[in-house]
């Protein structure tokens, strides 16, 4: 109970700061729009080609936005010299991890929803019938991405060349999540039942559990200094 309250206070703090400054969200929203431009320029007007590439493009957008967003997990603490303040919070440090993870997942899902909307409007694709399946895949994938991302953000926060190191560490580890989400999204967009991609959803869920448990157990080691 106390653990949940501690985690909640981190979530509340981060989301409140984000709501008032809208720093990350504004930039990511604009970035998402720019991504759409890039995808359009890269693929040209051919609708067939776009439809074939859609699941991959969608997740490319989510991952690129995620790399930028997740990399900023501890920017607030570092820039305002509150790192010590965060570490000095009483009790189990893994509560900080859970709080940061929950705040990250929330932020990422908002941005991903926006990207989805932009895809639907600008590429003129009807995503409505696949929305429930898509939401499930997005939640499973985003939790996996954010679970490792939050851990690695703490790892690279105090390291030189962190903007470079963060994606270089995160991308290879996220290969299973990327493959799983793209394959599942492909099936969902084709209108296949979720049962057809049950093994991918299982893999994503297993990845989420493994990543979160590892994060809970190892986060302590990253904060001591």
């Amino acid at each position: 109970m106390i653990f949940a309250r501690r985690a909640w206070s981190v979530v509340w703090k981060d989301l409140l700061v984000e709501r008032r400054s809208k720093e990350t969200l504004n930039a990511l929203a604009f970035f998402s729009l720019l991504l759409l431009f890039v995808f359009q320029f890269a693929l040209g007007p051919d609708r067939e080609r776009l439809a074939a590439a859609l699941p991959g493009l969608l997740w490319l957008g989510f991952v690129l936005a995620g790399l930028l967003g997740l990399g900023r997990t501890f920017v607030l603490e570092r820039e305002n010299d509150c790192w010590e303040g965060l570490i000095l919070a009483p009790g189990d440090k893994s509560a900080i991890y859970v709080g940061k993870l929950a705040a990250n997942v929330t932020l990422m899902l908002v941005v991903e929803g926006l990207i989805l909307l932009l895809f639907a409007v600008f590429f003129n694709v009807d995503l409505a019938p696949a929305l429930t399946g898509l939401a499930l895949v997005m939640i499973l994938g985003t939790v996996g991405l954010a679970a490792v991302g939050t851990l690695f953000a703490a790892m690279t926060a105090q390291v030189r060349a962190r903007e470079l190191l963060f994606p270089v560490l995160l991308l290879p580890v996220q290969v299973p999540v990327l493959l799983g989400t793209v394959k599942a999204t492909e099936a969902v967009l084709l209108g296949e039942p979720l049962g057809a991609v049950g093994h991918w959803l299982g893999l994503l869920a297993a990845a989420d559990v493994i990543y979160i448990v590892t994060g809970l157990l190892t986060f302590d080691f990253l904060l001591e200094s």
Partner: protein
Amino acid sequence: MTRVLGWLAALALLAGLGMAFAVAPREATQGTVQRIMYVHVPSVWVAYCAFVVVFVASIAYLATRAEAADRLAHASAEVGVLFTGLTIATGSIWGKPTWGTWWTWDARLTSVAVLFVMYVGYLLLRGMIDEGERAARYAAVLGVVAALNIPLVHFSVLWWRTLHQPPSLMKPGPSSMPPVIVRALLVNFAAFALLYLYFVAKRVRLLRLEGEAGA
């Protein structure tokens, strides 16, 4: 002690070469190029063993904070990356004449490539941190995450390439090979394992001396 290990490795490598070229038969369809298997397969086995050592040593470091465990993890990761690179290189050399291409996104090739970039990232992280104690701590966490990720990478890549779950997890193993080839493979594996131990012993000693000189 290290020197003895080095000589043993050199002798075993010679024996392995002898087994691969003189004792093992020439493959009927691929010809002599198939003999690269006696380098290719043992290196990938040794690479996997090396990453298991990184995993165990990382946990040991986090539990005990013994610098020796950190040095072992560091050395084993370096040598593991070396052997993974060797696997990819020999695989390419083997693939060109037999498959007609240096590289294909086949399931096993992709898994090994992912493994390679994951542990290159591990070494990059180590290189970016100047304080030894923090480098050890962060690298140990990454060593644990990377190792736990290996099975996930394996299954995802397998399903990605084959679309369907394979009937059995066990690959057609050496049991389908003639015993003389199996023997040649095992001799080479022993030689590569000795070489791994020699490299790690050297590297651990070097890291210890570096630490002492820096302190």
